[in-house]
């Protein structure tokens, strides 16, 4: 049933973002062309330069910003409207568990963020490919050289960092979901209570981290870095790797706690308006 829930959540995601992603691709291609032929072309000036050179660039930046903001709004809206609004009368009477509902929403949110991130990178590459294909070719030619200089330690750290960011993104989504669930416990002004709950959870988490900070400060810096006249050098990879692994674990525990708290509310305290 989880797969089926994701299917419909993802379908709603595609309906809203599909045209925007296509718009980003189209604008990237247009900008690649206009930067090369209008902005780099000294003979086009004045209003023509603004209309055909600057304007597409502004539109692309506005669209990128809009997609980023809309992704966040979508994550909140699909959870709030889909489970706790009128649509809840349909979704919460489907023969699925509340755990599956939360997991489906979180996985769709994760996929949306991932696709938006990939779309932004592809967008940039596409723009370069149309503007100056030679630059892109140069980048791809240089990549093997870069990889040759990166040893296994750095790769481990990069992968760990990537996992840290991804788990953090899931944790952020679960943070939003818990805030919405807590807001749902209020009789009135549930959106306002949700916002208040979001801030409160942030304060609690940051206070807990602040309390833990002195423990981290006790670890001697020399374990990780040495500083000499040539700059900072990483001396030991293992402690850094362990530290990032620990941070991932903390993130995962917090995300799981948010998940179970949200699930408790949906299961036991659901009260659709």
């Amino acid at each position: 049933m989880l797969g089926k829930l994701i299917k419909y959540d993802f379908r709603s995601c595609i309906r809203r973002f599909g045209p925007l992603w296509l718009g980003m691709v189209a604008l990237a291609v247009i900008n690649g062309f206009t930067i090369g032929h209008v902005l780099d072309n000294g003979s086009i000036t004045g209003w023509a330069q603004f209309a055909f050179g600057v304007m597409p660039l502004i539109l692309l930046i506005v669209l990128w910003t809009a997609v980023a903001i809309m992704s966040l709004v979508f994550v909140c809206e699909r959870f709030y409207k889909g489970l706790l609004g009128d649509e809840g009368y349909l979704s919460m009477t489907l023969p699925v568990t509340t755990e599956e509902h939360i997991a489906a929403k979180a996985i769709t949110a994760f996929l949306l963020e991932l696709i938006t991130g990939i779309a932004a990178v592809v967008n940039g590459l596409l723009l370069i490919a149309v503007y100056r294909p030679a630059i892109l070719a140069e980048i791809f030619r240089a990549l093997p050289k870069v990889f040759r200089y990166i040893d296994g330690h750095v790769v481990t750290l990069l992968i760990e960092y990537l996992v840290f960011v991804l788990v953090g993104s899931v944790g952020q989504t679960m943070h939003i979901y818990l805030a919405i669930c807590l807001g749902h416990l209020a009789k009135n002004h549930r959106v306002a209570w949700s916002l208040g709950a979001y801030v409160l959870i942030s304060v609690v988490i940051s206070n807990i981290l602040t309390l833990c900070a002195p423990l981290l400060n006790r670890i001697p810096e020399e374990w990780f870095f040495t500083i000499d006249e040539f700059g900072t050098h990483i001396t030991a990879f293992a402690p850094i790797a362990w530290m990032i692994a620990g941070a991932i674990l903390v993130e995962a525990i917090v995300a799981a706690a948010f998940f179970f708290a949200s699930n408790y509310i949906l299961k036991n305290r659901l009260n659709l308006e």
Partner: protein
Amino acid sequence: MSELVTCSGLTRWFGQTKALDNVDLTLTSGKIIGLLGPNGSGKTTLIKILNGLLRPTSGTALVDGMEPGPESKAIISYLPDRGYFPDWMRVGDMMDLFEDFYGDFDRAKAEDMCRALGLKSESSIKTLSKGTREKMQLMLVMSRKAKLYLLDEPIAGVDPAAREFIMQTILTNYNEDGTVLISTHLISDIEQVLDEAVFLQQGKIILHEAVDSIRERTGESVDALFREMFRAQL
């Protein structure tokens, strides 16, 4: 007749208000039952508890021997007193959804009913009128071969022609081995089709009896008896 719904000592508080007060109720299969009471008598609360949208403060509710959960939801077909369609969906998406989640959904029947109403699979739901959306919701709910139909105020706030359409859709499509529980305060429109009537007043069941028996015992219609009993609240 096997017991399909069993409620014992069912109580639900909302803050200081007792919406359901120690309700004991047993419903059997193969019946059309009216859940009758004025606004605020606890009809919707009882239906929401049966389909798992609310938890009781105390007491138990069992549907086919199961506490409300995914298994009981699979055999309940529920029509709420409001529209629940996601506005991004098309008519075909709703058909897909019902087919994916409910093993007892008869897609061919639903498509026939939609066609009769002039609805196309690719029609966007948000472009449909409120009345058409309500009819479509009812058609989807009645296209299931469910064990229990929970219909919350299906005929409230609609014109007489729509009322007739709604009652006709219910009566020609429900699973005769199952039970239909219809909540309403408009009794005269449904009295003819009811097997049993449950009267709710301020969260308490004050009467649960076969409709024929009520008529025989009191010498008046269920509607007349209802008006008499709830005169002060209507």
